[in-house]
């Protein structure tokens, strides 16, 4: 345990040291500028202390971000517009809806692609092409188009999430559904099994490990989609809105705390999928 904890702690310490160093170096010019304008001398110790306590630093110090996160989560009511939990939930809800839509869509597309050659030839290129367009470019289009047909709020954002998350599921599931080897497929043939039976009894169970692997990628992509989807909606609510509002008003501490909240959210979602993976494989008898 200690053998593993030590390297982890070392890396974290190194990151913190570099971060503080960066904060001092990047924030120092503004402090010097201020001192010069006031015509005052500033000692090095004072300079360093000041760089870590600015209200709008170029790079906020770690403890400033930590304090901001603490203030906007634990100390704020979660119904407050300034609560990070409130914004996190807005983003999480569209992430989860988009992830669910994307996963189901990805699975259905993969089943179609595996079973129909024509569908593979006609759909797969579009699936790939869809991912070469920067999401930042297409997100406002989706919002505008859906708004024109009367859809707004959660669903358009969720669809942008789905747009990003269906891709890894399609690719992973095509691989998973075709993973049974020739012997296993021949076995199904000797039983005179229909394609539907082969799908349920063989292809689907074989693809479960692949499904979970692609779902890990998809859930993280979903979160990115939800955040990007919040940007063109006028930055009303959500982590994306916090990021955008923060950059409008130069609130770098707010930006960084929103970034950390997003990263923590993504990490927990990926961990949850990993947990589900372990439980399902154990129940299937595939984990040893």
């Amino acid at each position, binding site marked *: 345990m200690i053998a593993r904890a030590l390297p982890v702690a070392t890396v974290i310490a190194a990151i913190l040291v570099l971060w503080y160093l960066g904060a001092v170096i990047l924030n120092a010019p503004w402090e010097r500028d201020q001192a010069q304008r006031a015509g005052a001398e500033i000692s090095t110790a004072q300079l360093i202390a000041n760089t870590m306590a600015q209200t709008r630093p170029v790079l906020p110090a770690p403890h400033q971000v930590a304090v901001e996160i603490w203030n906007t989560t634990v100390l704020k009511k979660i119904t407050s517009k300034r609560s990070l939990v409130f914004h996190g939930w807005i983003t999480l809800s569209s992430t989860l809806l988009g992830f669910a839509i994307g996963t189901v869509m990805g699975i259905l597309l993969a089943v179609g692609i595996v079973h129909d050659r024509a569908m593979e030839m006609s759909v797969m290129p579009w699936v790939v092409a869809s991912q070469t367009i920067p999401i930042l470019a297409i997100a406002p289009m989706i919002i505008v188009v859906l708004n024109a047909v009367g859809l707004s709020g959660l669903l358009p954002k969720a669809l942008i999430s789905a747009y990003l998350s269906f891709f890894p599921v399609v690719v992973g599931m095509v691989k998973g559904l075709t993973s049974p080897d020739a012997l*296993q497929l*021949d076995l199904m*043939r000797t039983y*005179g099994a229909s394609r539907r039976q082969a799908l349920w*009894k*063989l292809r689907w*169970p074989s693809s479960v490990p692949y499904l979970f692997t692609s779902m890990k990628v998809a859930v993280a992509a979903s979160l990115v989609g939800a955040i990007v989807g919040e940007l063109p909606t006028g930055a009303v609510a959500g982590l994306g809105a916090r990021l955008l509002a923060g950059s409008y008003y130069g609130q770098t501490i707010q930006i960084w705390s929103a970034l950390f909240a997003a990263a923590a959210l993504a990490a927990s979602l990926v961990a949850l999928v990993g947990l589900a993976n372990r439980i399902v494989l154990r129940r299937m*008898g*595939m984990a040893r």
Partner: protein
Amino acid sequence: MPVGDRAVIEVRGLNLVFQTADAPVHALKDIDLTVKAGDFISFIGPSGCGKTTFLRVIADLEQPTAGTITVNGVSPRQARLKRAYGYVFQAAGLYPWRSIAGNVRLPLEIMGYSRAECDERAARTLELVGLSGFEGKFPWQLSGGMQQRASIARALAFDADLLLMDEPFGALDEISRDHLNEQLLALWAKTGKTVCFVTHSIPEAVYLSTRIVVMSPRPGRVIDVIDSPLPAERPLDIRESPEFLEIAARVREGLRAGHSYDD
């Protein structure tokens, strides 16, 4: 075990040519063969002689390019759809997400047996191959030999009269192989099934079979069919008897003759 008169498999002038990228491969050439009900027939030959391909033609997993073949009087495809045979592959190929009983139930579920009958048949066939008590285990918890026995149980579960076995014990060690050969003979005596058995082991072929079909490669063809005079009752030490060695010698001779032009 008396061999009946009813022909289970009838093959006349069968040819199979695989079209490959560089040149067509003549996998089976002019095969004529009749397999009677209750036969235990072995196909022996070096790799590339088409013995596995021939078994796959019987099972409708490959299509012949010329000639006729009937299984139970109908085409292999119809026979397959009627679930006329159980197929045992070289690898056990058990599904890792199903328990041993679950694997044996697999064909039964596909064929639409009731839940109660699935359980009853799985228990019965697992007992037949000596795996009672392992129903709830997963494949990775069993040895290779036990896995192969489970796969035989799976092939027996739906009571097909014909059992097609493609080098089922090829990947096992000598001791397990002897043991399973003995059990297979006992099983065959008990069930009276017709067995087509592919192997490249001469002792295995001679020990098990009522008839031995010796095959040779390039093109794959039958060069000898030997009726075994050995009694139905075969203890393992029958392999030291003069009759046994005589048949083994004839098989070896056939295999060598098939190979001679090759060098």
